[in-house]
């Protein structure tokens, strides 16, 4: 009779690749965050601008056949923010443009609409969503000392940070990138022929680049705030304060020059003032990515600032995550 070993046996089966373990932290974090009712509502709200921006795409593509619709499109875009950028890009068009003229301006019109979507409604929603998702991600682990359990597993500090970045990045992709890509596909479907892809193929790439410029610094800054405190609410407060203070500072700095310029019937273009507001800095870089920035030096300085902020945030993050074990 065989004698079976009924005692303890260590696991000898296969294990998943260590390169994908950070995804476990990300997927669990995404699932935990998704339990928030407010977050679900915000994700739903984030789709509404998509419907709104589908209207100008529809009007533009239909106006090839009907000059009346062209006038409706022109009126619609006049109400959008930074419409000046579009006017500068496409110049003055006749009241009844020809199909060739439409083809010539299509790229600029689509770029402008996609940029406006990402720059305004989605960017504002991004601030709120990250303010909900990011603050507890690391502060909670520090408060409950869960890092002792994490790091008693074959997880490095870098993988831990990557996992947490994945959570915020997922929601930013859902809010900023995904709607813009859907809008592009929608625009292609609304256009007279699929040949428009040949003249607009670069736009999905620009969306992705603009998304990276948005996601990397914002995620790292938000997580750095989270790592600096044991209380999630303080991290959230710091996050929102950064945006509000930046915006107020920028508005204050341009108020007087704008007033002076208006008095002289001139146009005032902010330069270094842009660098005081995170929102304007991101906007400057995104505008440049979509080919709309008239002053590349501002975009370059903004881009360098984003890199510096990202590097500092990553350093803070790494130091704080390893700090409990150093003390």
């Amino acid at each position, binding site marked *: 009779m065989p004698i079976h070993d009924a*005692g303890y046996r*260590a*696991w000898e*089966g296969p294990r998943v690749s*260590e390169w994908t373990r950070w995804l476990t932290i990300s997927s669990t974090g995404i699932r*935990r965050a998704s*339990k928030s009712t407010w977050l679900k509502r915000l994700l739903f709200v984030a789709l509404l601008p998509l419907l709104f921006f589908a209207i100008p795409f529809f009007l533009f593509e239909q106006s090839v056949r009907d000059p009346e619709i062209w006038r409706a499109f022109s009126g619609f875009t006049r109400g959008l923010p930074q419409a000046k950028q579009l006017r500068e890009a496409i110049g003055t068009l006749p009241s009844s443009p020809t199909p060739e003229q439409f083809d010539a301006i299509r790229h600029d019109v689509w770029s402008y609409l996609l940029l406006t979507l990402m720059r305004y409604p989605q960017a504002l929603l991004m601030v709120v969503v990250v303010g909900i998702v990011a603050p507890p991600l690391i502060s909670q682990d520090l408060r*409950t000392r869960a890092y002792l359990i994490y790091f008693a597993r074959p997880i490095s500090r870098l993988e831990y940070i990557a996992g947490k970045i994945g959570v915020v990045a997922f929601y930013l992709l859902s809010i900023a990138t995904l709607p813009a890509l859907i809008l592009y596909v929608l625009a292609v479907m609304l256009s007279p022929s699929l040949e428009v892809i040949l003249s607009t193929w670069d736009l999905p790439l620009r969306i992705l680049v603009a998304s990276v410029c948005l996601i990397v610094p914002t995620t790292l800054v938000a997580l750095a705030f989270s790592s600096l405190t044991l209380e999630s609410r303080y991290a959230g407060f710091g996050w929102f304060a950064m945006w509000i203070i930046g915006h107020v500072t920028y508005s204050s700095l341009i108020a007087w020059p704008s007033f002076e310029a208006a008095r002289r019937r001139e146009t005032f273009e902010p330069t270094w003032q842009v660098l005081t507001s995170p929102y304007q800095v991101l906007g400057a870089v995104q505008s440049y990515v979509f080919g709309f920035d008239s002053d590349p030096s501002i975009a370059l300085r903004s881009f360098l600032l984003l890199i510096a902020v990202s590097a500092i945030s990553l350093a803070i993050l790494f130091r704080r995550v390893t700090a409990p074990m150093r003390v």
Partner: protein
Amino acid sequence: MLLDLQNVTRLYGTVIGVNDITLSLANGAHGLLGPNGAGKTTLLNLITGQLSPTIGTVYVLGEPARSSPKLLQRLGYLPGSEGMYADVSAIEWVTYLTRLQGFDTSQAKRLALQALERVSLTEHMHRKISTYSRGMRQRTRLAQAIAHEPEFLILDEPFSGLDPIARHTMTTLLQQWIADGQSLLVSSHVLHEIESLTRSFLLLSGGRLLASGSTDDINTLLTNVPSELRVRVDAPRQLAAELICEALVDSVHIADDGELLMKTAASTELGKFLSRAVAENRYLVSAVRASEDSLQDVFNSLMKIHRGTA
């Protein structure tokens, strides 16, 4: 070899966490005893590789403790702190942490279920952890430590804050773990909590390893350490005189209530003398108690031995 520490010192700035510990332990169950602030958690963090020693080397299961993912797959660790997410259920939490050990989702869930069954939490495993009692939370934390089937389980104060019933449950679980032939290192500042699990102790105080061995070894070590004894007897003055004549006490004091308080460096001989006196009906002894009834006093005695002042 379970553990091999060579001259391990860990400094926190100018504060010494553990001080020049050299230690080798064979597979099996071991208790790490020490008062609060003795350096137990620091030592456990060195063993789990979460801290690197300032001086010295730490080998666990034959592998260097620091930066060794393979080793961490073989260890189960229950830290002294809570470390749990309150808004998830036990099954979700244990599955998640088992996945971090490299198991795919279905395998991790199966192992988590087994572990929760082992700690008798199957019935409540779908409830949020925030609704659990302290004992249930502690069992959940134990489940995460054993779910990936480690070879060596390290527990930092597992009995802390548990009521007697929860303590009994935890003790039974750990006794089963040891009976299965697995290795265990459990820290505590209460001697009797660990006595029920193992006879092998490491005594740590002030960051130093004061003694190691079995209960008997430690008792032998302490036999001739000066200790205080309180005896309630019908003729205290006569007994005091006799003890002085026999040179069994270093000092003796008769309290107002008639209780004899004596200091002795020969507690074994004194014990024999009292037993003989009671057996011969020369004295009516109603109570004998050592004033050194706390572990801290044992450590103080050991510290005196180390300093050479005993």
